[in-house]
């Protein structure tokens, strides 16, 4: 019988750990979250591909009925907000917390603009008689975009929290891993939209 004890070499720290904690942006927990969210979006994409294969005509005509300008504006807004987050990180690392807060405030404005545009787009759809029950393409469209909308809300919460922590002096040029975690989550939201926009609005 193996009588391994806790002080045996088996339980020593490995010399080369699989994950180097210094090379994980933010913290490990946020990456569990990010990959979980990306898995959720992956399921939506797989559903899109399967529905597209089974109902090709609906997916060929669907994008033509959507408001391309709204989708484009939301893409521009999300990419810009990601850029603002990246600028905020550089500002904080340069020991300019006030500038970092200003960049993050612009990110929040981007999030708010996204909500307004999405609201107007849904209203425009409803006025044109496009609902979740119209056909399979629009069912996929509403489920995917509304799910993404919820993630923008979570991400905005993370950005608000980062702003409060910078203002409180808890995130500094040297110590700001929590801010990096919130930033990575926001970038993930942008990345998901980078796939959603062409699939729903462009590809026919």
């Amino acid at each position, binding site marked *: 019988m193996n009588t391994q004890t806790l002080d045996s070499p088996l339980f020593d720290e490995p010399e080369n750990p*699989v*994950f*180097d904690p210094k*090379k*994980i*942006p933010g913290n490990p927990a946020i*990456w569990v979250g990010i*990959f979980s969210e*990306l898995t959720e979006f*992956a399921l939506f*994409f797989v559903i899109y*591909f*399967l529905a*597209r*294969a*089974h109902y*090709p005509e609906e997916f*060929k005509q669907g*994008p033509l009925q959507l408001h*391309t*300008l709204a*989708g*484009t504006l939301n*893409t*521009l807004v999300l*990419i*810009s907000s*990601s*850029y603002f*987050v*990246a*600028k905020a*990180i*550089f*500002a904080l*690392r*340069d020991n300019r917390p006030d500038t970092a807060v200003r960049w993050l405030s612009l990110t929040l404005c981007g999030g708010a603009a996204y909500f307004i545009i999405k609201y107007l787009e849904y209203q425009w759809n409803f006025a044109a008689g496009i609902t979740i029950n119209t056909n399979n393409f629009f069912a996929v469209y509403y489920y995917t975009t509304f799910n993404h909308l919820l993630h923008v809300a979570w991400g905005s919460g993370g950005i608000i929290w980062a702003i409060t922590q910078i203002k409180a002096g808890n995130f500094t040029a040297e110590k700001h891993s929590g801010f990096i975690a919130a*930033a*990575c989550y926001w*970038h993930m939201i*942008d*990345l998901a939209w*980078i*796939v959603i*926009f*062409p*699939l729903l*609005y*462009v*590809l*026919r």
Partner: protein
Amino acid sequence: MDKTTSPAKSSRHLDMIWLLLMVMTITNAVIAEQAEPSLLVTLTICWIIVIKARLVIDHFMDLKGASPYIYYLMNAYFYLFPILAILVWLFPEQVANLTRISS
């Protein structure tokens, strides 16, 4: 971030990346409004997805220096779905036949 470069200076390259992403998004919008569906258009759209994702991952997220597990998994994700989009565009009937529940 390169530690030998000042943050203010090195953040300037982000401006160019942002501009590039804006141009690619507008290109996508023009394709959506004007181009007729074709293999070339589909390939272009999917190529733009990959490039945009790579730009965000490499420059905005700055994941190049991160754990390779994170970096390569993130990259793989944004290659996988454009490739699937091309395959479904090329072989819709085969995909439908493979995934049909009832005969």
